[in-house]
């Protein structure tokens, strides 16, 4: 076979595979959004769910998803940032750090059901947090930490060593160099990693079924004292998220419009994750432009 022909065949095959994948994705997204879109209106997005009658919304579940996401990021981001900085900037290359890296890799491939059951035993039962947003946030921290740490470590590693030398040669300490030169330069890429991980947290269900619970008690959106049980901010209340809600309706939902609610909720979930991804690209790009070229 001549090189020109074989190149053509290879090209065609690769285009075919890529096209096939895009097609599947487009079909999936299209189906979810088209079936769910008719449900989307302000009423659906803001009213509480109904267990037995039609016309329920996903208001509380939607709020729970965002609140849980916020709490999880509040817990996991500082830890991941510290771990990422240590691993990339300070850690010597020896067996201890190798063990740490391997542990992070294993942790990142842990099935989320296992993370959920672990969270159930530790946070719900042992620490007596009960089915609560806090238990869920801790479980999701375990779920999120390895990947976020990796992504921050990689963001830092992508910054050229000449930047570090530049800082040190000006008589700055290593800490000053890392926090004032390397971190700002890595910020766009770190932010992209955080937003992408937010998308994963937002869509996670299995780890939350056993930790944040499957019930969404009514919330009083006028009460913002986090110590009141009906306050949306109370971290100790059980909180069914959007993803858990979808799972639950489909497995044991008895409301007459279960299918429609499920479709609508799925569309909201998918659109949210899409928005996270687009946001990640947009903000990352804008920040990078702002740092590297003229305004």
């Amino acid at each position, binding site marked *: 076979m001549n090189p020109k022909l074989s190149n053509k065949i290879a090209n065609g095959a690769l285009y075919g595979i890529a096209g096939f994948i895009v097609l599947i994705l487009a079909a999936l997204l299209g189906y979810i959004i088209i079936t769910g879109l008719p449900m989307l209106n302000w009423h659906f997005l803001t009213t509480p769910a109904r267990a037995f009658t039609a016309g329920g919304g996903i208001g509380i579940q939607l709020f729970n998803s965002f609140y849980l996401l916020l709490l999880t990021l509040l817990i996991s981001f500082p830890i991941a940032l510290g771990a990422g900085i240590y691993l990339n900037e300070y850690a010597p290359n020896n067996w201890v750090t190798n063990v740490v890296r391997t542990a992070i890799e294993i942790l990142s491939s842990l099935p989320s059901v296992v993370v959920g059951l672990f969270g159930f035993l530790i946070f719900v039962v042992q620490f007596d947090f009960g089915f609560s947003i806090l238990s869920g946030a801790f479980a999701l921290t375990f779920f999120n930490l390895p990947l976020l740490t990796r992504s921050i470590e990689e963001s830092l590693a992508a910054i*050229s060593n*000449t*930047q570090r*030398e*530049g*800082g*040190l*040669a*000006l*008589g*700055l*300490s290593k800490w*000053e160099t890392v926090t*004032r*030169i390397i971190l*700002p*330069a890595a910020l766009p890429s770190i932010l992209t990693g955080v937003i992408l991980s937010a998308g994963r947290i937002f869509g996670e269900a299995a780890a939350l079924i056993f930790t944040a619970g499957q019930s969404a008690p009514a919330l009083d959106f006028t009460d913002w004292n986090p110590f009141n049980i009906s306050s949306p901010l109370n971290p100790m209340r059980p909180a069914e998220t959007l993803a858990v809600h979808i799972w639950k309706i489909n497995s044991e939902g008895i409301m007459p419009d279960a299918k429609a609610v499920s479709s609508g909720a799925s569309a909201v979930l998918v659109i949210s994750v899409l928005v996270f991804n687009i946001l990640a690209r947009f903000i990352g790009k804008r920040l990078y432009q702002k*740092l*590297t*070229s*003229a*305004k």
Partner: protein
Amino acid sequence: MFVNPTSQQTTTWLERNVVDIKQKFGANIILETKGLRVLYGDHEALHEGDLQFGEHQITALIGPSGSGKSTYLRSLNRMNDDVATVKGQILYRGVDVNRSEIDVYEMRRRIGMVFQRPNPFAKSIYDNITFALKRRGVTKKAVLDEIVETSLKQAAIWDEVKDDLNKSALALSGGQQQRLCIARAIAIKPDILLLDEPASALDPVSTSKLEDTLLRLKDNYTIIIVTHNMQQAARISDYTAFFNQGTALEYDVTSKIFTRPKVALTNNYVAGDFG
């Protein structure tokens, strides 16, 4: 009897000729090394490189790749601390700075460095210059403005950037970036400026501007420059050291190195026979 096959070539030439520039030329020594050796793990990259550097002079370090000249330069302000073992003394104005009790950060503010590849920070031109100053407590806007202007002028880049000081430094050309890095280094008013092949990533026009800059900086700073470009060494330096295989083989006035070297290898190198 046993005859060393290479001995015949070198019989008429000295093997090593490092001139004591203080004794011979009365140079005012600001920096010198004694017994300096640098090891990367088990590999000794620098065996014997003791030199003296005259105040307000430009000293060029030349030699083929892997000759240890960059290793030597980077040891002078202890940039090699994390990657190599540096043994021996580095005497800066008579004080050995190669000791653990020396404040290495303070020392590096006296002995600044500019690198092979321009490495401006991802900040504005203004912030690149003022960054280290601010970290050391200089906060008055008027003082900072003044330092920014004088150091950019000294680095001969003021006229090109004075209207966009708030522009990102990364938007500058390579040659401009390198002069900005020099401005950044001299903004903290060091005594000595170490330059590690600063022109190797620049085009001829930028290189020529850089050389003019260095010649003008000589009045206020002591400059030690590693270069692969022998014309450059000949053009700008007062003294030149030739390194080969981890040893400073010859050190003398630049004109002497390039016209009447005493060591055969130096002659071969500057004549372009190897390297």
